[in-house]
């Protein structure tokens, strides 16, 4: 998959580790908890604790750090943009460090920029780690179970999970197809990477039309194939895999919860100890 080889987010890497073996519900809840805490944290110390936790999880899951960093690469410009925005257009006032025409860069704004940048990095890192250690199937299973109690209030837990399963199953297939069509059109002299923005947008028609036609054809075929195997929605359906919440899950949840609590304690309270 030549054009998409930078893509790491959403790529499950099948390795056997204690982290991989956890119940998907544990992984989903832990990630949700971490994401919430990241938004609540106000101090660098909190971010540092969360970073240590994530790195520890990644190491325990035997993910190569280089691979993880590669996954962050597409994010680089977004990060630069967010930081620049904060530095130049942050809160007025504070201690000016240097001045460039009408623009004043203050120490406060620089710190704030570093904080937001770091947080953005952690947000992406934590979701990336989760997708790397949770197979898409486990993820949807876990999500379906977690949502099941809400079925009574009208949340279509099964349909959502099935939609996700299929989306996840077909992402690699559609990416391959997109690449193939792109190359086929390039073989007919099409250019996707040159010219002004409107030119490039127009140049996408020969890619998008066949891709949509193909996707609809696939969707049709898949619907027929599912019906042929007696699929009629979530009712009466059982599952081969029954999820089990074990002692190791309890340990994992406790560790994450503890780290989250520490991250939220303001440094002043630390000094008080």
């Amino acid at each position: 998959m030549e054009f998409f080889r930078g893509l790491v987010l959403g790529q499950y890497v099948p390795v056997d580790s204690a982290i991989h073996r956890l119940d998907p519900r544990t992984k989903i809840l832990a990630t949700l908890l971490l994401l919430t805490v990241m938004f609540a944290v106000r101090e660098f110390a909190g971010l540092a604790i969360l970073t240590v936790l994530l790195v520890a999880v990644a190491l325990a899951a035997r993910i190569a750090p280089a691979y993880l960093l590669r996954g962050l690469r597409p994010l680089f410009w977004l990060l630069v943009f967010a930081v620049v925005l904060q530095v130049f257009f942050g809160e007025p006032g504070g201690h000016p460090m240097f001045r460039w025409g009408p623009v004043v860069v203050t120490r406060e704004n620089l710190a704030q920029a570093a904080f937001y940048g770091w947080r953005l990095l952690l947000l992406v890192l934590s979701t990336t780690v989760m997708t790397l250690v949770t197979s898409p199937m486990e993820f949807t299973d876990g999500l379906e179970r977690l949502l099941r109690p809400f079925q009574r209030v009208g949340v279509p837990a099964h349909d959502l999970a099935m939609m996700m399963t299929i989306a996840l199953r077909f992402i690699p297939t559609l990416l391959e197809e997109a690449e193939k069509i792109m190359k086929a059109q390039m073989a007919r002299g099409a250019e996707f990477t040159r010219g002004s923005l409107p030119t490039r947008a127009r140049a996408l028609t020969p890619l998008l039309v066949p891709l949509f036609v193909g996707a609809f054809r696939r969707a049709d075929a898949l619907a027929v194939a599912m019906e042929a195997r007696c699929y009629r929605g979530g009712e009466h359906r059982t599952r081969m895999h029954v999820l089990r919440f074990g002692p190791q899950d309890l340990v994992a949840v406790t560790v994450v919860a503890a780290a989250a609590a520490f991250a939220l304690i303001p440094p002043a309270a630390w000094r008080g100890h």
Partner: protein
Amino acid sequence: MIRCEHLTYVYGRGTPFEATALTDVSLAISTGEVVGIIGATGSGKSTLVQHFNGLLRPTSGRVLLDDVDIHGPRVDRRRIRQQIGLLFQDPEQQLFEETVVADVAFGPRNLGLSDDDARARARRALELVGLPPDRFGPRSPFELSGGEMRRAAIAGVLAMEPRMLILDEPAAGLDPQGRRDILEHVRRLHRDGALTIVLITHSMDAVAQLCERLLVLDQGRLVADGPTRAVFADLSRLTALGLGLPQVTLLARRLGERGLPVRRDVLTIEEARVAILEALAVRGRGVL
């Protein structure tokens, strides 16, 4: 015409999915040849031909068109792609325009031709694949039958007026008549249009009928390169690579092993018929 020198290609570099697709492949294809490329799925056939028109860039080694490195400085990629026409498997997937003629004209338009010139070329190309432009040109490509769509897609590359045409499984999924039609058109393009043809296929019967020379790939390496007859004569090697033999060649082999002295390098029904009749006559005389 095309020459590959020590071509190696590695994809997914630096990811857990890194793999070597081609290893040290050197070959040359001359103008006017009909060359078949065979090999099991994943042996690198498709990766190899994508180097011929510069869609892929070798990790190491060179690809030369008329002795010029196609990734050299001041080489126009479009000119390479115009000269080396490449059709992927299931090429009907690339159709996107509202009419067949507009779709076929897509390539020529990309080459900078005027609308009129592009359409004129499109009409000629449709003629070549047996889709009369007056009848098929104004129709939507999505209304055509499977075989017609396939031929329209081939026309889309022919309209670029390439010197070489590379086809990946052009007859897959068609009924026997559809297969015969496509192969007959390819044969005619070579004979009348003087096109150099490269055919990737799993159908040993198709390469036996069409190709003068075969390249055999196995796990990214070129393991055989020679006249079709000679390559098929090397049976043990082909079966070890997960490839078959043309049915009639296999039959001749089996008869030979059972003591009937049939020539082993037959490729067509007619050759097999003659060879078996000769062998039976020899045996008949031996008995008398």
